[in-house]
C-alpha cells in the first residue's frame, strides 16, 4: 500500500558540514475500502439492515474519516455521533468488526481491509437511528453511583492535600470519558439493562478510593445491590473495549473486595 521515495539532499561543496541523508519517507497511497454499515432509519425501515459503501482512504485515516466521507459524498442521511474527533469526548463508540471501538481512534491500517469492515451501533441500548443509541439508561446508572466528590468536615483554606500514593490508587479510573464502549460490550448488560454496568462502577471506583472523599459507604451500598458489582462475571470484554485502556475488570474486583472485607 505504500511506495518509497528517497529524498535527495543537495550539499554545498564547500560546506564542512557532514551531509545529511534524509530517511526514506514512505508516501501513503489511498486505497478503496468497503464499509458494511448497519443502517436503521426509523421513518422508513422496519428493521436495521446492512448497506455497503466504498471510500478511498489512507492507511492513517480513521474509521470516523470514512463515515464523514460517506455522509458528505455518498449518503447524507447516514447518522452517527461525533464531536471532538480526537478520543476525548466519548461520542463515537461503535461496534467495528464486531468489537466496541471509538471510530475516531481506529486507524484503517490497524484493521483487515481485505473484507468489508462492519460498523454497527453499540449493543444493549435502545437504537434510535443508524449508529445512534439512546444513552439515557447509561447515564442514569452513572448518576446513581454519586460520581462527585463528597468531602467531610470544613472546607480547607488551601487545597485538599493528597500523597502521590493515595492518588495512584484511583489514577486509572480518572481516565474515563463515558463513551459506553465498556458497558455495551458486557454480555450481562445485553440481557439485563438493569445492571449498572462497568462504566458506572469505574466512576464509583474513582471516588471510593480517593482519600479526600468520605462518600465511599454510600457508593458501596448502591453497588451492593443485586444489579450492582455482583452481576459482573469477569468476561473482560469491558477491559478489552476501553479506548482509555482502563483496567476495568480489575477496578470492579477492587470494589467487590471493598464490599467483602468492608475495607477501602
Amino acid at each position, binding site marked *: 500500500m505504500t511506495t518509497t521515495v528517497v529524498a535527495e539532499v543537495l550539499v554545498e561543496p564547500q560546506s564542512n558540514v557532514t551531509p545529511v541523508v534524509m530517511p526514506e519517507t514512505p508516501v501513503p497511497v489511498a486505497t478503496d475500502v468497503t464499509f458494511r454499515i*448497519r443502517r*436503521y432509519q426509523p421513518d422508513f425501515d422496519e*428493521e*436495521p439492515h446492512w448497506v455497503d459503501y466504498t471510500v478511498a482512504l489512507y492507511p492513517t485515516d480513521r474509521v470516523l474519516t470514512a463515515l464523514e466521507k460517506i455522509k458528505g459524498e455518498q449518503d447524507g442521511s447516514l447518522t452517527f455521533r461525533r464531536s471532538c474527533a480526537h478520543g476525548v469526548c466519548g461520542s463515537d463508540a461503535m*461496534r467495528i*468488526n*464486531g*468489537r466496541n471501538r471509538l471510530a475516531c481512534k481506529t486507524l484503517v491500517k490497524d484493521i483487515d481491509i481485505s473484507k468489508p469492515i*462492519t460498523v*454497527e*451501533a453499540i*449493543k*444493549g*441500548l*435502545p*437504537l434510535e437511528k443508524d449508529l445512534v443509541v439512546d444513552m*439515557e*439508561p447509561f447515564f*442514569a*446508572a452513572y448518576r*446513581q453511583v454519586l460520581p462527585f466528590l463528597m468531602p467531610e468536615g470544613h472546607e480547607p483554606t488551601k487545597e485538599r492535600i493528597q500523597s502521590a500514593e493515595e492518588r495512584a490508587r484511583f489514577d486509572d479510573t480518572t481516565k474515563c470519558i463515558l463513551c459506553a464502549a465498556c458497558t455495551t*460490550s458486557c*454480555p450481562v448488560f445485553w440481557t439485563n*439493562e*438493569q445492571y*449498572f454496568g462497568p462504566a458506572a462502577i469505574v466512576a464509583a471506583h474513582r471516588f471510593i478510593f480517593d482519600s479526600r472523599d468520605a462518600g465511599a459507604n454510600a457508593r458501596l451500598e448502591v453497588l451492593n445491590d443485586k*444489579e450492582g458489582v455482583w452481576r459482573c*462475571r*469477569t*468476561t*473482560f*470484554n469491558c*477491559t*478489552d473495549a476501553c479506548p482509555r485502556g482502563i*483496567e476495568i*475488570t*480489575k477496578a470492579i*474486583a477492587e470494589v*467487590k*473486595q471493598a464490599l467483602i472485607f468492608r475495607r477501602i
Partner: protein
Amino acid sequence: MSVETPGFSLRATPIGTLYRGGEGMWTWVLHRITGVSLFFFLFVHVLDTALVRVSPAAYDEIIATYKTPIVNLLEVGLVGAVLFHAFNGIRIILIDFWAKGPRYQRQMTWGIAAVWLLIMIPGFYFMTIHTIDALFGSTS
C-alpha cells in the same frame, strides 16, 4: 435503576454480528455451559444412586444400561467439563482476590488449556480403552 425498561422491548436492534469477545468471554460461556451441565448430571446422578436404597435390583439394571460406548463418551465429556469448570473456577477466584489476577487472566486461560489437554489426552485413552477393546477386539 430508575429507568423503566420492560423486558426485551428495549432491544429494537436485532442482534447484528456476534460480538468478538476475547478469551474471557468464551471461558465465561464455557464456564456457564459446564456449570449447568454439571448441575443436570448431579441431579440425575443423585436419583440413580438413591435408587440403590429403594431397589438394588433396579439399580443394577440401570447401571447396566450405562455400559455402552455412547455413555462412555459422555463420561469422558463429564470429566472434561468438571476439569475445565474446576480449573477455570480457580482462575476466576484468582481474578477476584489476587491483585495481579486480572492482568494475568489471559495467561491463566492458556495455562488451563495446557493442563486440561495434558490430562485429557492420556485420560481419553485410559477411559475408553475398555470400550475400544470391546468394540474392535483386544489389542493385547
